[in-house]
């Protein structure tokens, strides 16, 4: 997994200056780098590392990418951690509500069972981290550990600088899980978060800010010819004779797909258009198929609503084609992580309408690169406005592309990592190379 790619492949996209600076800063990275996460494929972290590692190597920095292993129990535990950390407060409330009618003794018993389960989860987590620590060579000068799954590898740290790169929102976690995880995480030299909104005040180590990024040369974002776009749309029976509104997202309640259909229906009364809802169902989400069925039901009877379930998952080129064929892109999430799919849409020069949650407001500057909305009615109003005013849509799309060019491309991300590694040895506000 240690292929090499030249940063100069990106010259036409980002210009010479940034690339020259990357080369200069890379000369000041004195040692080896190792990234560790839980998987080589699937999910945003693997996607970013697939693009990032070859660029590190291309800059002459000896860089490895390794993944930890575990059994089904381990990954079930880490999925539970993910949900518990990722702001699932509403689930905790639902659980508490279920307990209101039970007796005090039953309640105590439930709590003991809950704690026993948690204890077993924590033991599974630590056991697999110990197994991986014994099997892996964790001796690079800079160790970058991604997300909670491998976080306890720090317990065997012997040398080097260790950074915990947290891609998820831990601002409102389940307290028991967070208290457990905080112990290993606070042993790191530094942590990295995607936005200030995702952080914790109780870590006790340096916290850096590094937003995620998209790779403009990946299949998901590379320029496509009209022929390539046409062939994907033909495959799914979508014509291009009327404007296309698209949301690419998992079939998940938090993506508010019914709200997107409501917005589309309001617009449809005023002007002809069509809607693409394209996504998959996460293997570990028992609700996903239920959401898909509800969406199908709501879309029934309207031939201009294309509900596309990617099973097997859509190829990246297909997602790219859906976005490029769109007139307006939606990401009307009720709750979101960083929501990089917004950056993907903006990079294609499309106006994006999104919910004001998670990382979306960092990408959509309201009225400049798209619109932030709080309701289906609000979304409908903005969609109609963009469909009626192609010049406005074009300007907003161009602004969005420039916003992504400067802030959310892999080359900026690489620069942030180099500066992070340089800063680990120097706490001052001005570092002179």
């Amino acid at each position, binding site marked *: 997994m240690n292929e090499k790619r030249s940063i100069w492949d990106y010259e036409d996209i980002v210009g010479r200056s940034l690339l020259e600076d990357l080369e200069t800063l890379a000369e000041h990275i004195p040692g080896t780098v190792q990234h560790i996460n839980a998987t080589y494929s699937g999910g945003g972290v693997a996607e970013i590392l697939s693009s990032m590692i070859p660029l590190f190597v291309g800059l002459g920095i000896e860089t490895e990418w390794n993944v930890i292993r575990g059994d089904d129990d381990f990954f079930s535990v880490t999925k539970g951690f993910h949900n518990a950390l990722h702001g699932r407060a509403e689930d905790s409330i639902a659980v508490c509500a279920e307990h209101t009618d039970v007796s005090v003794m039953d309640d105590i018993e439930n709590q003991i069972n809950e704690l026993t389960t948690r204890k077993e989860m924590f033991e599974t987590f630590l056991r697999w981290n110990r197994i991986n620590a014994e099997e892996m060579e964790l001796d690079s000068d800079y160790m970058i550990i991604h997300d909670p799954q491998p976080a306890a590898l720090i317990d065997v740290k012997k040398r080097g600088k260790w950074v915990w790169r947290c891609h998820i929102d831990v601002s409102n976690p389940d307290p028991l899980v967070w208290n457990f995880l905080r112990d290993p995480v606070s042993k790191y030299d530094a942590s990295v978060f995607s936005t200030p909104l995702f952080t914790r005040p109780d870590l006790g180590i340096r916290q*850096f800010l590094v937003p995620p990024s998209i790779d403009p040369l990946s299949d998901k974002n590379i320029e496509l010819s009209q022929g390539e776009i046409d062939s994907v749309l033909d495959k799914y029976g979508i014509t291009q004779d009327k404007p296309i509104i698209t949301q690419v997202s998992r079939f998940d309640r938090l993506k508010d797909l019914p709200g997107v259909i409501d917005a589309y229906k309001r617009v449809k009364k005023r002007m002809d258009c069509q809607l693409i809802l394209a996504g998959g169902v996460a293997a570990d989400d028992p609700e996903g198929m239920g959401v898909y069925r509800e969406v199908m039901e709501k879309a029934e009877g309207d031939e201009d609503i294309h509900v596309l379930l990617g099973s097997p998952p859509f190829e990246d080129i297909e997602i790219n084609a859906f976005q490029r064929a769109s007139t307006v892109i939606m990401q009307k999430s009720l709750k979101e992580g960083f929501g990089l799919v917004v950056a993907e849409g903006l990079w294609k020069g499309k106006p994006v309408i999104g919910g004001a949650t998670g990382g979306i407001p960092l990408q959509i500057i309201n009225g400049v690169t798209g619109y932030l909305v709080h309701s289906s009615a609000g979304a409908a109003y903005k969609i109609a406005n963009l469909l009626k005013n192609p010049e406005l849509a074009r300007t907003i799309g161009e602004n969005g592309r420039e916003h992504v060019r400067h802030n959310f491309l892999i080359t900026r991300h690489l620069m942030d990592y180099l500066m992070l590694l340089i800063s680990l040895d120097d706490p001052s506000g001005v570092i002179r190379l």
Partner: protein
Amino acid sequence: MADFTFYKARYHFELTGLKARDLLELVGVIKDVDESVVFNHIYHALLDYHFLPPEYPNDFSYWIADVLHEPALAERLADLDLRELNDPESLRKKIIKIIEEYLATHDVSGRAGIGQEFHFVRCISVVFPTKTVARDLTDVLEIIKGSDDLDSIFYYFIASRLLDGGHYRALSDWVLEKDSHELMGKLDNLYPYGFANLNAMKIEIVKIIEGYFWEHL
């Protein structure tokens, strides 16, 4: 005249863990934080907005207007005369004075909800030499005109000037070796908030140098 090597900086961001939910908390934290935090929140928008001027030129103004709904105070903080506030301490004192005066004369009750707090972020500048070298002022003009590198402009005319002054002074001394006091005076007088973006600032710098050449060479 010795050759002049251009420097530049790239910036990255460290969270301080400090946040504010109302004006009192905001001003309290501003009094204590590192100067690189104040610098960040006053200037980083100039680096971020390459295509359109933001509604307010700094983070404090934007948050006070957008979250606390105190546009009059936001406007006062948007109108800082950064030519006079040429060191971080005077900048900090001015911001504190404006907010405290406002608090003393207005009934302010706005408080940010969860997720809308003002997060104090520190800006770390990584400064390094570029491969660009000028032998004389004509070179300087050509380099600035031909470069797409607005980060150098930001570094010399904003960051270096405010944070430690070293490289800006070096540029100034080098220009003054040519006895170009008038030119340096005009460059010193550049007002960063007056421009739509950094490219507009670059165009103004080119205009100043070309104007100087027109009159003197």
